[in-house]
């Protein structure tokens, strides 16, 4: 029997789930189809940074909008997402790096955004007492934060389900076609809706391609390593400027280290794999910036499958080719913070056909097949 809805969302990650939630709040009937389980991939296993700091300029307005939602998200969901407000700081190891940060702050100010500020050497020490002596300053967004990605995404999905969204987990989309409405065929049934959202993450490029829209999504596997518990020494989420590093001491004392380097990702098998030689420099950077880390021990690591676009910003908005088809994918390993705001924006776009945000930088037809 064919089930019908106003909107079918393909992909139960944070973007699919939050769009489903906000669409339901607008009164739409929604079915989410997820081939694995909600939050199984990048949305559940990312480093949990809720970061506006250092974003691509095109993403800043949407990221800012999302941040406003984050501050009230746990109340709205009635759930603990492990969200805490905390500074995000990119430390500068040279004057030249600090100068680049100064230029960025001026650019943002001209755009009307004031969340990023320069920290001088004394200020960076105030926020990061354990930072190495050679650090000269930093760029900070003081009211960013971090959260538990799995708790957050599953809480959003749970709230969506309470609002009437139907989640079909363990069901794989085989194909979709449009006559008057969209028909989505899965390995377990068929569904019909007037609108379809492609929020399939690393798998979204193949889905778009099956509909004749070119989107060069690369499956990547960001890697994270976790240390045994250390005494509390850092409240902020820290990155470096000239070399890849993301660094966060969790409330329980463990330190999560990631940054840039990638393992192996395989979208056919859902598997990702650590490549430890790629983490040598990351380990060295962590010890350089926080000397206390010289005594740390790695107890665990993880990686997940994420979709990356060649220009490192997502595909967002209406299809360039099909009516009633929308895309929200390719967040290139920094989509977690944008989840709530993007979901709210996309639900509005899908429901009304319009949004206040300028999505031109995110259009799917910015890519052309060779």
């Amino acid at each position, binding site marked *: 029997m064919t089930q019908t809805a106003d909107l079918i969302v393909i992909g139960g990650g944070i973007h699919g789930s939050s769009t489903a939630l906000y669409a339901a709040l607008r009164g739409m009937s929604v079915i989410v189809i997820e081939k694995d389980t909600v939050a199984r991939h990048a949305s559940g296993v990312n480093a949990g940074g809720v970061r506006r700091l250092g974003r691509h300029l095109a993403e800043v307005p949407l990221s800012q909008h999302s941040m406003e939602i984050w501050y009230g998200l746990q109340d709205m969901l009635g759930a603990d997402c492990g969200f805490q407000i905390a500074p995000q700081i990119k430390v500068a190891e040279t004057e030249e790096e600090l100068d680049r940060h100064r230029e960025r702050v001026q650019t943002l100010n001209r755009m009307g955004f004031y969340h990023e500020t320069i920290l001088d050497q004394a200020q960076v020490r105030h926020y990061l007492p354990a930072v190495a002596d050679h650090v000269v300053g930093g760029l900070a967004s003081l009211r960013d934060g971090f959260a538990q990605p799995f708790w957050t995404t599953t809480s959003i999905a749970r709230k969506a389900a309470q609002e009437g969204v139907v989640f079909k987990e363990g069901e794989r989309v085989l194909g979709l076609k449009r006559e008057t409405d969209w028909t989505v065929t899965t390995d377990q049934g068929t569904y019909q809706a007037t609108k379809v959202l492609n929020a399939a993450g690393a798998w979204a490029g193949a889905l778009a391609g099956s509909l004749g829209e070119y989107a060069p999504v690369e499956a990547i596997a960001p890697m994270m390593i976790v240390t*045994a518990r250390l005494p509390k020494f850092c409240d902020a989420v820290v990155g470096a400027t000239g070399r890849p590093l993301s660094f966060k001491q969790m409330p329980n004392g463990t330190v999560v280290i990631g940054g840039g380097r990638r393992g192996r990702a395989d979208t056919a098998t859902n598997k990702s794999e650590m490549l*430890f030689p790629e983490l040598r420099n990351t380990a*060295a950077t962590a010890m350089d910036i926080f000397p206390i880390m010289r005594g740390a021990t790695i107890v665990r690591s993880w990686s997940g499958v994420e979709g990356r676009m060649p220009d490192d910003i997502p595909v967002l908005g209406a299809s360039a080719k099909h009516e009633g088809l929308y895309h929200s994918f390719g967040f290139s390993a920094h989509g977690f913070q944008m989840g709530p705001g993007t979901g709210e924006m996309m639900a509005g776009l899908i429901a009304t056909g319009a949004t206040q945000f300028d999505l031109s930088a995110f259009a799917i037809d910015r890519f052309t097949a060779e």
Partner: protein
Amino acid sequence: MTQLSPMQPTKVDVAVIGAGPAGMAAAVTASKAGLSVALLDEGQSLGGQIYRNIEHGTPFRDGILGPDYVAGRSLAESLRASDVTYLPRTSVWNISTDNMLDLSRDGSSSQLIADKIIVATGAVERPSPMPGWTLAGVTTVGALQILLKASGVVQEDAVLVGSGPLMWLVAAQMISAGTPPKAIVETTPKGRMAQAMPHILKALKGHRYLTKGLSMMRQVRGAGVPIYNAATDIRINGHEIAESVTFVSKGKEHTIRSSHIALHQGVVPNQQVTRLLRCDHKWDASQHCFRPVLDGQGKTSVPDVYVAGDGAGIGGAKSAALMGRLVALAIAQEKGKAAPERVYRLQAALASDGAVRPFLEAMYAPAPQFVKPAKETIVCRCEEVTAGAIEDAVDLGAPGPNQVKSFLRSGMGPCQGRVCGLVVSSIIAERRKASMDETGYYRIRPPLKPIPLSELANFQPLEVAQK
């Protein structure tokens, strides 16, 4: 920078992980067949757990540990006489899908490529979750035996709580060493003998084991050690340090004072390496554990990966060595080498050695208290997660151990779920009324053993082209 030791090869035909009976036998056989072999082991010396410290025996210690222990010495001697490259103090902390092993040895990490990998990492003790088991002074019967084998030291005043052949063996060894346990609290439920009887005829083919078992029990009873049967409602009391153990036996509550409580519920395959490699596993309802799915020659579902010994399912030291030889022969054959011995003889010996198992498995299956611990019992010791919290996470919608892990951090501590994994899966299965195969097990992530961050910074990967 530390240079690679000249002893350490960078590429071998066969890497064997674990130098217990299975690993030693596999390594020697593969080497005899003309293959290049590296034997990697965390320990200081050959033997694994069962033959720990086997090359440094004294007549006194040999006397305590008995002839089944001493039998391991010839295996170690044959290993020493072979061309196998034996790397002690070496922990394999990751294996990637291109058969690249990441190793830590004497504080520095390097890599080794192997055409074939034999996982011979043996068994671990089944967890015995109960109230108070995280207190200081609570240990396992296996740990007491390690102490005895490694340094000839026997814990005084110990109370053994649990069931299974190893507990009786260690009790007998403690008596031989002149330091009997203070008491034995036996947890085998009533009626187990009736359940085990259908297997007795088969077990009689392995009568040597039955005779040995009965004589150990006689020795323990004869030494006057108090034995409490079919104990239930067991809890360990104390603040930070164990002070006593309380339980019910024959309808009566008992409390025994001791600050050394050793628990045991039998042994199960150590799954860490085969899970890391994502080999298929299946629940064994007789052994009450997961075991890797193997073909008749020890080959897993993952190409080039084999398992020999207790890691394939519990069979004991003798079976482990036989299986090690069989697996090595299968690899030799695949690589076009002439087999140095007959496969069918080994298979017959393996079948005969395993005859006693179904009886023991029915007799010593874990008691319900350990499969479904009481709500307030801490299950994941590293992150202090209770059985009740796991049930609540299941009620919130977590369908399996990996989702429960994401909710509660169970299995995320330094032990990586080695201790709690089976219990967490069984609690979830019970709660969801699902089978153990449906429920599954933790995904195991590297590093298998903690490594210093500074060691990762100085990691020396192979620069050679990957195979």
